[in-house]
């Protein structure tokens, strides 16, 4: 019979918590990307040579970034709940 050692399970919990932190940081990054895309769309709106599709496309992609940020936070929350609920020792 194979059993996990306490040291290994603690390491696993730490790894999952690290992923949680990364997911939260990535959510912030995605929010930043959304702002960046909106800023680019605003910049292009003042440029007569900018293609007409550029602004709506960038705004749509910014919205997708915001949605992705929310979903990453939700995933981080769920992963943290799972990690903390576990009997790792």
């Amino acid at each position: 019979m194979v059993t996990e050692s306490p040291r290994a399970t603690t390491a696993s919990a730490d790894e999952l918590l690290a992923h949680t932190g990364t997911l939260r940081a990535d959510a912030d990054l995605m929010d930043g990307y959304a702002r960046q895309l909106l800023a680019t769309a605003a910049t292009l709106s003042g440029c007569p040579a900018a293609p007409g599709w550029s602004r709506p496309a960038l705004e749509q992609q910014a919205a997708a970034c915001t949605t992705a940020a929310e979903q990453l936070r939700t995933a981080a929350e769920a992963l943290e709940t799972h990690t903390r609920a576990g009997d790792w020792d």
Partner: protein
Amino acid sequence: MRADGHAPGRPTPDGQDAGELLRRCARDVVDVAEGIRAVSARTGTALSAPPLTASARRRPRTGLAAQWALLRALTNKQGLGGSAITEPKGVGQVLGAARAVLGRESLAALVAVTSLRLRIAAVLVDHPEFGRDPGMRRLMAAVTADRDLEAVRALRALFRDRGAQRALCGLGPLMAELVAVRALLDEDPKRDAARWALAAGREPSAGPPHDPPKETDQGQGAAEAVDLTDQERQFIATEGSFLGFLRNIEVLSSGGRILVQNVRGPDGVVRYVVQVPGMAPGRPRSDAPQDFVRAWHNLFMTDSPHTRSVLLALADYGIPRGADLALIGHGEGGLALMNLARDEEFCRTYRVTHVVAVGSPVDNKKPADPRTWVAAVTNQHDIMAVLDGRDAGSAFDPHPHWHAVDYTGPTRVFPLCHMLREYIEHLRTVIPVAREGVDAALTPYRGPIVRTQAYQLKDRARPPEGYPFLTLPTSSIPTTAGPVDVPVRYYDSSAAHLCFPVPADAARRLLPGVTRPTPSRLGRRALAVLSLYEHRCSTIGPYTEIALSVLVDDLWRPRPYDIATDLLRRADLRRTGRYVLSLAVTSDEARVVAREIWGQPAMRTTAEADLMGREIGVRSGDLGLTVEGRLGPGVRCPEADWTLYGRRADSTVRTLVRAHGRLRLHPGTGVRLRLDTAAAEPLAGQLRRLGIDRARPLLVLACPQFMLHRSAGAVLPR
């Protein structure tokens, strides 16, 4: 400060600001795409983390909830969009397959394609003529779809299309974005990572030269000593000078050859000069890259087939170790030589004293030997010379100690502004001071040439371009435009032949001579053919061709319905053919070849042709001629081999044309010819006399992409 007195980065009054703004936005957006891709990769890693998989089995209530939340974040169409690029196996692979089934594209890919579209818009602001480039046209057709998703799919299909690779290779100004976007559209995560590292034009030169990407090109270089033709020898400089070396390169500009010369310097020491041309747009390449990404990678590797071939040529030439070497190149040739100068082993073998690159993207390169003197000559309008992401007008000057001749030349139009002939003219007339500076630096190489040897570079691992159809014995024929190899070979062409029934008497009156040739008759009608060609790559360069011809019978024994029986014969055995009444071409070289080799009454004109799709269009403002319309359903036809007849003095000239492609026969109802000129010039007058100046053709024979070769004209006895 540039050689012409302009400070880099200063906005010019001709609207470059808009282009720069679009480029900056494109860079910002591709940075975001790169960031999103990294977020997707990390989310995928979290989803497939072994501790999560193991613990979810033990505690499914919270474990499955966490996995579901991660899966949703990774694949939701409204968010990251189903990117599963991090894991080659397991969950990632399943997700990748699911994405393909569901037809989803990742958010990173969509954003990267937006960046590419902005970059295309930027290029077209500065260089609207680049929109006529075959590769650009195909790219625009792919990415200008109404919806992002369709654009991504069309682009993915374009990247898989082997026939499009040649055209894409010519898109130097967009290559960084193309590589970046293809990296994001690639399903193979390992290759994806390697390509992303080289993407966006920022990284290719970051690594050491002996650290090639994982996809090392396994092609074997080869170099064979070849003789120059007598006519070429007349143009090879006998004294070492900057312009002399560049003119040598100009002589070698076709056929993948390089030149190595010994020069006895003013101090009596014999030194060596290596001269390498770039790839001329619209002419066949000797290295025939498998795809544009590989061609791009090769530009940044010392260990590419091209640089290996140059090394083999130098070894064959017998340059002693430690000898002084000057490396002079144009375009990709300059870049290949700079890569050699970056190679420490090469610099230990020879003393590379000078590198001179004209119209080459060498900004981010640094020779291994710090004593090497480097000169880079760049016309700011030459978009092929700013591949490394340093756009024209950028204030960034990576090598303040280089002799950087960065000027705004009078030639704006691409590809003219990239051609070596233009650079030579500018160095002579626009920036003579810069030329004198380079000449002064090259003083040790300014003496009599004591030996000259040309080498043909080859890549043994790949067949030559156009193989086997265009692998033919050739011979050189002198013309007033220089020597021309025959058969003339066309590697990438489109054509539409509009067939009009015309009165036989009207056709006969347009033919020379009283007795022959006579028009082939179909009842009381003869058949006139207006042939429209777009030659994107040929041994005489790219050009558009508009030819009006009439089908004619056997010159010696004309019989009714000759044409019908002849169609069953091999092309070289046919006695009937098409007599060319008039021909309009868009390049001088093509005009000279048509006149002097094929005996056809060619004139120079301007014309734009798009014959690659169902919608065809050819417009020539000079001729007042427009052909446009949509091809209806068609049926497959045998290869369109023809015999063409021309006239030289009183003799008839016979030219054999062999073609290889997918020819289709369409009804002519959707296509219309329109003549909007009152001129009585040859083509317009002939169309009117045939009564087809505003007519729809009976039939259209069309071929969107094919290869052909045209033999030298054989003069028939009178």
